């Protein structure tokens, strides 16, 4: 499908109340915890207190004897009735079941499941389960785990490195030798995650008469029904996943397969509906929803003018005890491995390591956020080393607008952009020179103050092509999305989509797109969610893909409908379709627009007056369309080069920060974000997600960490110690928009679900380091907590 970029849109880009909001403000959203079925039972888990141990024995007798307890299930029973969850890497021996089998590999791993008449009773019974553990040696630190003599997390694997490969794109050695300058540094992104306020929840009900499992889950998981069916040994049509469950935030992490497999199994074997709702303690250490935990060792070679010629990155990612899809988060950033810069040689060495910690899951950006942080740390160091302005270093390295489409060394082509324009816009909005003056005045008054910036990419559109790069068995080369639209006899438009949403406003997105194409008010377009039996293929809201893919699918279906309406009109006006014009749902003669058939007339013909339909036309008025990702369909070459994501959103942030010399607290005193995601379909929705992404980024940069002690215990396992930014910690944010349409999409839109999060940690680190620079201090570790900054500042004895 070629792009159909028009200068002015009627509905796209206009401010419009999102459809979804009304049900949420009236308290009538329907989340997993709101699904209550007659006879439903509740689950609680028994979790391992040890990071590594052999399970010697499990005594469930006392738990089973408690009144109100229906069942107690352990791994031995569960593995008989389910297929294992496989890793996203090529590790066929790493089989995983929801309940541990013989061995536990992290503190929080599920060992037994209690099913009882209430959650409270299930928790009472869980305390009565006696598990006899024999602790084993554990390994917590990823670099320690890489040592040859490290305790093995998986006894049957040859060490703890699950994946390692060195990619070389371009003449790296030569490009590294030539330039006059080099910088080498380590950037550490400690473990955090996007931690939604709603925990994961799932309800399942087995219907034996129909041999069908109904599932309601707070999920954001591509192919969730398919994976669940495979694990439960059901055909895909044996699962009915209800996508109309509202999800209370996910930002990547709610994959929930182990939860759903367990609950599906229980519902089937017990013959009653079963519900599992994680509580917050369950979620933090046992929900398998931790985020990136990265060590980057980076080298950049650059000229006297600060232009980077070559880049080497070694990225270690600590996936925890099991590698689900999280390991692939080292692969997706290959799509933008040089960031927004003209760097022509790259060596990239991703290393996936397992340790005895809670498993990692996909987090907003799928690895791009930490990678951006690593790259931007280098850009600032280059400026520092050469005594150049940091903004100027960006200018000299940014890809120029006349160079698009721009192919980077790893094989992806960036579709469009004007990075310099966005940078200029945000600098103007922030009034950079005044911020610098403000900083200098604060310094003169004895305070630590800094201004920072970042230039980062948000690859969008979503493509599977990083999977075969990391797992030759996974020859997936595309992700698709579908949409069905029908217009009924009354003239009502209903569009149907096949996935959950977690706040991205997909109903509004689709209604706006359909309204735009059909020239009908989006408020008259109802958007519903089919369940997995009725839905067209979807790949869920991942990879910032929905504006592009769902927007494209909805537009494709709407176009088919429009063509159908034009055909009906032309036939009844007795002219060729080319002689007609389509206006607001009516079809008229181009030569004499008074000669027209109105919307309801066309609908009546389609539904009722078969004798007036063009011969060979299907009666009724409905269309479906499934779209594959633009530029998709290629497998990687031998050197790993491949086109990954299609569209590239760009963001540039400017931040003002002051650090208290004594306490190490960082206060953000100004936040500006320039953002170019092409054409925005609904500005409030896009801006909202960007503000939220920045808040996530502030958390990752300054406050949030899953902190483990040397014994593998999670110390920040509740909201008392895992510190999420409140309205006091997130400042007012100013967004300035720019638009370089994508030539690849229907309306020129690019994706934007990850914006803000992908750039904020880099920008805040830039500001913090600017504040620390007069003291000769530097920090390349996030989060830059009060503890970290306080102790760092103390090395300079800065009290007075």
């Amino acid at each position, binding site marked *: 499908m070629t792009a159909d970029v028009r200068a002015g849109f009627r509905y796209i880009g206009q401010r419009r*109340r*999102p459809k*979804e*909001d*009304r*049900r*949420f*403000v*009236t*308290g009538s*959203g*329907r*989340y997993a*915890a*709101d699904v*209550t079925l007659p006879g439903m039972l509740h689950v609680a888990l028994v979790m391992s207190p040890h990071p590594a141990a052999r399970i010697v024995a499990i005594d469930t007798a006392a738990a089973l004897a408690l*009144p*109100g307890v229906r069942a107690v299930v352990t791994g031995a029973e569960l593995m008989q009735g389910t297929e294992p969850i496989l890793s996203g890497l090529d590790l066929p021996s790493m089989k995983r079941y929801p309940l541990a089998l013989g061995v536990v590999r992290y503190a929080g791993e599920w060992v037994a499941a209690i099913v009882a*008449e*209430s959650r*409270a*009773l299930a928790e009472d019974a869980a305390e009565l389960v006696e598990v006899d553990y024999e602790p084993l040696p554990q390994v917590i630190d990823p670099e320690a785990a890489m040592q040859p003599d490290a305790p093995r997390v998986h006894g049957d694997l040859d060490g703890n490195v699950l994946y390692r490969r060195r990619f070389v794109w371009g003449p790296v050695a030569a490009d590294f030798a030539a330039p006059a300058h080099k910088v080498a540094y380590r950037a550490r992104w400690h473990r955090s995650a*996007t*931690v*939604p*306020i*709603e*925990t994961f929840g799932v309800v399942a009900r087995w219907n034996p008469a129909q041999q069908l499992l109904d599932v309601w889950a707070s999920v954001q998981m591509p192919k969730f029904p398919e994976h669940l069916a495979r694990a439960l040994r059901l055909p895909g049509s044996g699962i009915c996943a209800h996508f109309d469950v*509202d*999800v*209370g*935030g996910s*930002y990547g992490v709610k994959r929930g397969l182990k939860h759903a497999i367990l609950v599906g199994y229980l519902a089937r074997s017990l013959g009653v509906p079963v519900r599992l709702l994680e*509580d*917050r303690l369950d979620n933090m250490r046992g929900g398998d929803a931790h985020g990136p935990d990265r060590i980057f060792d980076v080298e950049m070679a650059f000229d006297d003018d600060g232009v980077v010629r070559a880049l080497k990155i070694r990225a270690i990612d600590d996936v925890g005890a099991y590698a689900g899809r999280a390991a692939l988060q080292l692969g997706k950033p290959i799509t933008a491995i040089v960031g927004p810069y003209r760097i022509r040689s790259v060596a990239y060495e991703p290393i996936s390591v397992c340790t005895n910690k809670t498993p990692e899951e996909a987090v907003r950006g799928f690895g791009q956020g930490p990678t951006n942080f690593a790259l931007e740390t280098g850009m600032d160091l280059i400026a520092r080393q050469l005594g150049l302005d940091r903004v100027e270093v960006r200018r000299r390295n940014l890809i120029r607008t006349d160079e698009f489409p721009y192919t980077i060394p790893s094989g992806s082509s960036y579709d469009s952009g004007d990075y310099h324009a966005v940078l200029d816009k945000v600098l103007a909005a922030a009034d950079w020179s005044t911020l610098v003056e403000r900083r200098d005045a604060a310094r003169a008054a004895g305070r630590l103050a800094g201004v920072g910036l970042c230039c980062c990419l948000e690859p969008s559109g979503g493509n599977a092509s990083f999977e075969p790069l990391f797992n030759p068995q996974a020859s997936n080369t595309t992700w698709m999305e579908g949409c069905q639209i029908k217009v009924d006899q009354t003239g009502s438009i209903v569009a149907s989509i096949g996935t959950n949403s*977690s*706040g991205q*406003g997909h109903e509004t997105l689709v209604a706006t797109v359909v309204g735009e194409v059909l020239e009908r008010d989006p408020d008259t377009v109802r958007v519903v969610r089919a369940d997995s039996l009725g839905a067209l293929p979807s790949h869920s809201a991942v990879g910032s893909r929905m504006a592009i893919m769902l927007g494209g699918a909805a537009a494709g279906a709407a176009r088919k409908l429009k063509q159908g309406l034009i055909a009906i009109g032309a036939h009844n006006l007795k002219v060729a379709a080319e002689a007609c014009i389509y206006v607001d749902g009516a079809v008229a003669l181009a030569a004499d627009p008074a000669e027209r058939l109105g919307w309801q007339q066309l609908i009546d013909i389609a539904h009722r007056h078969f004798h007036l339909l063009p011969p060979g036309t299907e009666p009724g008025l409905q269309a479906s369309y499934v779209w594959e990702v633009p530029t998709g369909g290629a497998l990687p070459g031998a050197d790993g080069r491949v086109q990954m994501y299609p569209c590239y959103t760009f963001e540039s942030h400017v931040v003002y920060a002051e650090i208290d010399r004594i306490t190490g607290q960082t206060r953000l005193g100004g936040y500006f974000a320039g953002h170019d995601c092409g054409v925005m379909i609904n500005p*409030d*929705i896009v*801006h*909202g*997600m*960007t*503000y*939220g992404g*920045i*808040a*996530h980024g502030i958390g990752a940069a300054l406050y949030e960490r899953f902190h483990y002690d040397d014994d593998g215990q999670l110390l920040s396992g*509740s*909201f*008392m110690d895992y510190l*999420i930014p*409140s*309205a*006091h910690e*997130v400042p*007012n*944010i100013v967004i300035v928009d720019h638009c370089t349409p994508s030539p690849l999409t229907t309306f020129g839109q690019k994706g934007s679900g990850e914006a*803000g999060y992908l750039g904020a940690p880099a920008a805040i680190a830039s500001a913090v380091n600017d504040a620390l620079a007069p003291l000769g201090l530097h920090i390349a570790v996030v989060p830059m907590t009060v503890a970290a900054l306080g102790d760092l500042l103390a090395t300079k004895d800065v009290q007075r």
Partner: protein
Amino acid sequence: MTLSPGEAEAMSLHEITVMVNGTVHTARVQARLTLVDFLREVLMLTGTHTGCEHGVCGACTVMLDGSSVRSCLVFAVQAAGSQVLTVEGLAPDPEGMSVLQDSFCELHGLQCGFCTPGMLIAAHDLLQHNLAPTEEDIREAIGGNLCRCTGYKQIVDAVALAAERLSRANAPKGSAGDAA
């Protein structure tokens, strides 16, 4: 949430009468049942949410006898004889929305909606005392409610809009507010 006969016998139940959103309810509950679980599972008022069950996230915020409280930190038995207002009680009628709710829709002060009921109650509490809040006042009022979607900006804007609309509605006829 129904109890099995075994359960009901094994534990002592307390009979409570509570007024919720203007309707009186009587029920027999376990002492350990929290107010939020009572609202959600016994009264089926699922608009109030639990996000942490240890009093930090604020998703469970309701009005209890005129004060905003974390309903995960109150037991249902403690609310006997009290009046509770939840998000379901904010709208003047089933087809309508309060000015505050409508303002959240107008400025998209939410995304996933999970923290929203708690936010609305916290904002409702503020607007009952202060119809001219500063941005700092608003951030202070919602400072105990965590949101992961919005970054708070559109929430703050929505509360400010509601305050402005309510104070205009309250202004006497012939004042400057009329022109708006």
